[in-house]
Structure formats: C-alpha cells, structure tokens
C-alpha cells in the first residue's frame, strides 16, 4: 500500500499518549446510559481500541486475524482517511487517535473529540441493525431535515446516499450524548421530530 500524502503530516504518538487516549475512551464508554452499555455488551459490541495508525491498516489486520479476506484496495484507501470505524462483523470500534485531523488540538478539545467520536461509533453499533430499509431509503430526505452543520458535515464526508441515515443516526447520537454529558435531557429544539423519533427507535435513546 502506498502511503498517502496525509501520512506526512501524521504525528506518531508516544505510547503514554495512546494509553491516555484509551483511558478517555474508557471514560466515554462509562458515560453511556447504563442500558446502552448493557445492550452493547449483550450483543458483543463493547470492544474498542485506540490505534496509532491509518485505519485501513488496522481494519485489514483485524479482518485477517479473524480469518477473513483482506480489504479491497479501494476499501483500504477509504478507511485510511477515516477517523474511526465500527466493524459490525467483528463487533469492535477502532479509533485512529493520531489522525492528522486531530493535529494541533489542545488536550481538552482532543479529549472531547475522541469521546464524541466514540459516541458516534457506538451510535452506529446500537442503531445499524435496527434501521429498516425504509429508513435507509429516506436518507436524503432525512438529511435535508438535519441542522445545517450536521447536514454539511455528512455531505462532505463523501458517503453514499444509502449511508446517510446511518451517519445521521450516529452523529445525532453523539450530539445527544454531548448534551447528556452536560446534564441536558429531552429533545433538543434544533432537532427535527422525525430524526429524533428515528434515533429513539433504532438506538433505544430514552432521555
């Protein structure tokens, strides 16, 4: 695999920095609603790992070690640009804690970003299997109902239209967790009723 250009800007973390990131992920896990942690554990989806390398490399390694075929080249390249990933078949969340997009963050912003990214991925883990085909088919319409910044973020992520609903559920879950972590509960005024209902139905969100 040819190294990508962004690898030139990538900062290799010290082991202690990776361990610190693991600690933050652990605390983010503990901040989930207990019922969600229990559900994730019951479906074997409570594993995560902070990695200090491009995710194409990590995911490929996880798949091979589990006896599966290697990623296709295009999937490898795509995942190299990702900050995190939920591998549904292996029930594990991987987070690239040295992704170039995190360079220059102060400690507080770094902790917040990797926490909300983990919440985003656990939102996927909770919701992906309960999204109905009609939910997936409604992705483009639902995205139009999302707050502007969320909508533009998902559009700029380069996802296919069939992935919009999953990304919207995961990102909304992360935002609801960000509110909950600040002791704010209930439906936020900036969130469309239909999206809120969807997130409640597929993730079990109950605040």
């Amino acid at each position, binding site marked *: 695999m040819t190294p990508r250009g962004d690898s030139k800007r990538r900062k290799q973390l010290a082991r202690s920095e990776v361990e610190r990131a693991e600690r933050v992920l652990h605390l983010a896990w503990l*901040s989930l609603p207990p019922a969600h942690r229990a559900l994730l554990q019951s479906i074997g989806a409570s594993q995560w790992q902070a990695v200090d390398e491009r995710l194409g490399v990590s995911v490929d390694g996880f798949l091979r070690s589990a006896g599966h075929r290697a990623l296709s080249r295009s999937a490898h390249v795509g995942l190299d640009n*990702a900050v995190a990933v939920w591998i549904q078949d292996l029930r594990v969340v991987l987070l690239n804690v040295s992704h170039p997009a995190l360079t220059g963050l102060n400690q507080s912003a770094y902790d917040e970003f990797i926490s909300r990214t983990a919440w985003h991925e656990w939102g996927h883990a909770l919701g992906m299997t309960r999204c109905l085909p009609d939910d997936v088919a409604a992705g483009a319409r639902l995205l139009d109902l999302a707050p502007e910044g969320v909508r533009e*973020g998902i559009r700029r*992520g380069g996802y296919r239209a069939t992935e919009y609903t999953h990304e919207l559920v995961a990102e909304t879950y992360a935002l609801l967790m960000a*509110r909950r972590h600040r002791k704010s509960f209930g439906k936020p005024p900036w969130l469309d009723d239909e999206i809120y209902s969807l997130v409640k139905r597929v993730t079990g969100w109950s605040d």
Partner: protein
Amino acid sequence: MERLASPVGYMLGEGRRAEDVLAVQAELLRSEGIDPAWPGFDEPTADDTQYQQ
C-alpha cells in the same frame, strides 16, 4: 476465505478538521443555552464499573 462487506468509516471530509466538528456541536449547544465547554469526566464509581469493557 470470506470477504466481508467493507465497513464504512467516520469521514470528516476533505479539508475538514476536528475543530470544525466541535464548532458545529458548540453552535448547537449554545443555541439552546448550554455551555459548550468540555466538562471532562468524573472518576468512575463502583456502579459504573459493572458494565466495563
């Protein structure tokens, strides 16, 4: 040997950085009167640990 469907990663998009994601979140929180400053984490309690990884 089986090749699984490729997982889809969390993509920020070309030129988009972590600060941009946090800024969107901060704007939404601020719009409803919530202080967007990161509160950090409390130390876990004994009850928390029953669902540890």
